[in-house]
């Protein structure tokens, strides 16, 4: 019984760590490659996108998932929302942003992604 309780507690600790404490470091750099965010199977792929600060950026979305929640992507910090038709790539024009992390998500927050806006010098591409 002791063993089971310990497993249970470890499980809880893992849930807390995996979903809340763990901060994924990897983000795809939108200044280097032309990114299309695929909306499918409950996630945005890629979900973390690095963007240069201070200049407007275009981000493409391609929705594959029929689920109605996936049909709209919201950028609440910029009061932006875009309908995503199925199988049609849709460009979302983002304004020039100051450095920081901004979330984008579906209306129900089941699909979640973040824009990591960094000063240009931090980006790897250097193609500007």
């Amino acid at each position, binding site marked *: *019984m002791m063993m*089971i*309780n310990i497993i*249970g507690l470890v*499980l*809880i600790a893992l*849930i*807390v760590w*995996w*979903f*809340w404490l*763990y901060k*994924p470091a990897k983000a795809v750099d939108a200044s280097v490659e032309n990114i*299309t965010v*695929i909306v499918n*199977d*409950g*996630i945005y*792929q890629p*979900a973390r996108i690095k963007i240069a600060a201070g200049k407007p950026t275009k981000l493409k979305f*391609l929705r594959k998932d*029929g*689920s*109605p*929640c996936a*049909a*709209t992507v*919201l950028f*609440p910090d910029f*009061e*932006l*929302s875009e*309908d995503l*038709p*199925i*199988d*049609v*790539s*849709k*460009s979302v024009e983002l304004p020039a942003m100051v450095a920081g992390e901004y979330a984008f998500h579906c*209306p*129900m*927050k*089941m*699909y*979640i992604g973040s824009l990591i806006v960094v000063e240009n010098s931090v980006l790897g591409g250097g193609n500007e």
Partner: protein
Amino acid sequence: MNKLSGDITHGASQELIIDGASCASCVSKIEQALAAVKGVESAEMNFPLRTVLVTGDVDSDSLIKTIEAIGYGAKSTNEASDDELFDEKEVADEKYYTRLMKQVWIALGLGMPLMIYGLAGGPMTVETTLERIVWLVVGMLCAGIMYVAGKHFYIGAWKSFANHSANMDTLIALGTGTAWIYSMVVVLFPLALPEMARHVYFEATAMIIGLINLGLALEVKARGRTSEAIKRLIGLQAKTARVVRVVDGKEQEIDIAIDQVQLNDIVRIRPGEKISVDGVVTQGRTTIDESMLTGEPMPVEKAEHDEVVAGTLNKSGSILFKATRIGKDTALAQIINMVKRAQNSKPPIGRLADVISGYFVPVIMIIAVVSALVWLNFGPEPSLAFAVVSATTVLIIACPCALGLATPMSVMVGVGKAAEAGVLIRNGEALQTASKITAMILDKTGTITAGAPTVTDIIIADKSYTENQILTLAASMESGSEHPLAQAIVDFAIKQGVELESVSDFHAVAGHGITANVNGQPLLFGNQKLMLSNGVALNGFVAQAQKLADEAKTPMYLAINKKIAAIIAVSDPIKADSTSAIKRLQANGIRVVMLTGDNRATANAVAKKVGITEVFAEVLPEDKANKVAELQAQGEIVGMTGDGINDAPALALANVGFAIGTGTDVAIESADITLMRGSLHGLADAIAVSKATLRNIKQNLFGAFIYNVAGVPFAAGLLYPFFGILLNPVIAGAAMAFSSLTVVSNANRLRLFKAKEH
């Protein structure tokens, strides 16, 4: 064909969506075919996305034809109009619905008989070898159903897990997965479990998958209806236009696609046709039904120089008009854009639900583990079976969707409903604040009154002048002013055939009037303050002016050489329905205050006529915002209504700024809420819709909170120690499936909302 200069299109890129490219070998075929098209610099296909990026000076039509010629379908990503996107969305939704329903039948096909068998008393336990074999077959069938009908839950759950996030899929996958794995352990290793715990739950797995798919399918249907309003607006856009073009040296009227219309094109509209783009009438006269945009039922007369707006309906005459705004710049396109943006924005009331949604799924997972541990430690035998059932039920009953859907669905319907009544709400915050307004400031001119003043009286004080001379001097002075009262005097004078004279030393004194020289004579034209500050004796004329003011007219003094010469009175008629609309606001418990730069007596007279008791009169334009602040300091939540032109600071400072349009001439950017028609009933409608929407959101949020707060402990078995009740996972699945459907349906109820008849 694109005839723009090479500089502009050189290196321009466009994207096409390819249909029917099923193998990777298609890629080179398509790329080569496109590269051979004249003008194409490069063509790169993205096979997983089925898109191809083409660079070069070439139009999309010839690219599409090339692709079609080699046996594939193609369309440009940029050319899909809102209308087409909506059609595609409907087709996609329908497909999704059909697929889900298929999955529903497959899952329920196995789940229902099993559940009926269990309910009828059939043993769901594994004791004999025969039972093991039968349950093994059922278990395998169930695995098949999980794959065919529930694959999307498991893939979604896994992908979000790998992404360190969790969603509804996670809960369903864990819940059904736990039930299935436990049942398989019972079948395959019965001896590893205590005898009482050898119970299978295959029916739960199949039923839950079926029911949740059913909930999703019904939700897709119900959601389609929430976007009816925007669909209707999009449907207002005409698809073609008849323009006057020179063909073969001759002027001809030809029909062209709407996106081909250029600025300054002359467009022909015949009776019964929709106006295709925004423009100004150049020939003909007609009446136009603008109700679809403004909510104003009376058709509007249009003649030369009047504006016409895309999407409205020409009733009687045939007109020619010059296109002044096309494509995304038309008022209709901007309205559609604004409504769409507002429909997806969230009022502050939804933020708590948003925060909760962010933590919801992992919290439920933790509760499921805790609940299983409690059952294992303290539960009666078979505690293991109880632990599995309670953990599964907790995972299944929790519904993050209901919580997440509560606000956006109602906002979607509410904002759309408002748009139908000619009320454009900027965002969710404006919607929420509008529902809480306690005081409403109404600008007088153009808001309560028609904003089209006319000269009503001319009283000569100095008999050495004729009425015509007085009018000449007054109109000449006012011709340099932009004030609406000035315009009224100039218009009146021109109608009387007066010729204006040249003016020098023109000077406008805000809130007082104007001073100028005409024919070397120094003139003053304005209110009592202007006269007194310049030492003009008004003798007995104050009483006359007062009498005019008491009749809701605005008297203005004209002094020549600092001597009173005449009083000219101007009256701005009160809009026919202002009184009833103000009554509606007051009936809602809103304190209505009138604000005007006009003199106190006139202001009071107008206020009295429309039933307003509080008046801020003689307010200088720059002080309007202070009056808003004054009411706010009294603890009021203040709405300010004006024409959006000279009261922008007051509109901005107010808790909610309402810009009142005349017809479709809307000040979209300047206010939180734009009323497309001139009637103040739009204001009462806006507040009524906001209140109804907020009430709907609250019902939804309350329902979703209560559902989860009550459902989860119930599922965990909190009632078991007291009443011996433990929830069946299948019932949890049904509850979960229908909880989000209930939210969407409740939001749909808002569609039936009607602002009170007026």
